């Protein structure tokens, strides 16, 4: 069974602080995606990383895929209240289907 553990589970910080969310597994994934979900809405894709060691930047968000493609991290610089939400990593299971395995989730609250 492929599992993705995220840490921390909850995070409450002040506006302007930096933070890192981790997504770890013992399994290898073909690719890994990060989503953000706001209350009452479905998750929205932020980024997809495919190559081991890959780093992608999206404004104040930096995503990294581990060299062995088993783990990933999301770093947010100078967090803003608009960053508040549930962050989910999801790994592509591989094989014949495009089934996504979702991580356990990180609930982020950025206080103004």
């Amino acid at each position, binding site marked *: 069974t492929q599992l993705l553990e995220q840490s921390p589970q909850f995070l409450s910080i002040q506006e302007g602080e930096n933070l890192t969310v981790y997504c770890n597994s013992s399994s290898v994934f*073909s*690719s890994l*995606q990060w989503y953000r979900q706001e209350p*009452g*809405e*479905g*998750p*929205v*894709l932020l980024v*997809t990383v*495919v190559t081991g060691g890959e780093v992608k930047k999206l404004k104040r968000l930096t995503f990294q895929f581990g060299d062995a493609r088993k783990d990933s991290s999301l770093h947010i610089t100078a967090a803003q209240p608009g960053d508040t939400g*549930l962050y*989910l990593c999801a790994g*592509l299971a591989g094989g014949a*289907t*495009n*089934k*996504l395995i*979702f*991580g*356990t*989730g990180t*609930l982020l609250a950025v206080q103004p």
Partner: protein
Amino acid sequence: SAVISQKPSRDICQRGTSLTIQCQVDSQVTMMFWYRQQPGQSLTLIATANQGSEATYESGFVIDKFPISRPNLTFSTLTVSNMSPEDSSIYLCSVERGGHKYTDTQYFGPGTRLTVL
């Protein structure tokens, strides 16, 4: 991108009844999925809705409890049968257009919040 709507957006149901949730996409897509999510928690895949054939269910989910239909490439329904309070959750559909296998994007509907009394 894809625009996905779900009906109903929320419902409160009595134990023992059934509810059918609809998922409509604004364009044809290759893959449609149904997920369950407890508020503030992660998503669990229920099944892949296959057009023209029976859905593919994940471990722990069965067709008798969660019958799924997908009559065409833009529409699917999920029924939650013989409901109990444990079925209270958010149910989400998602779609993939079908592109590069490793980078294709899943687009999610807004979800249906179900409460079973």
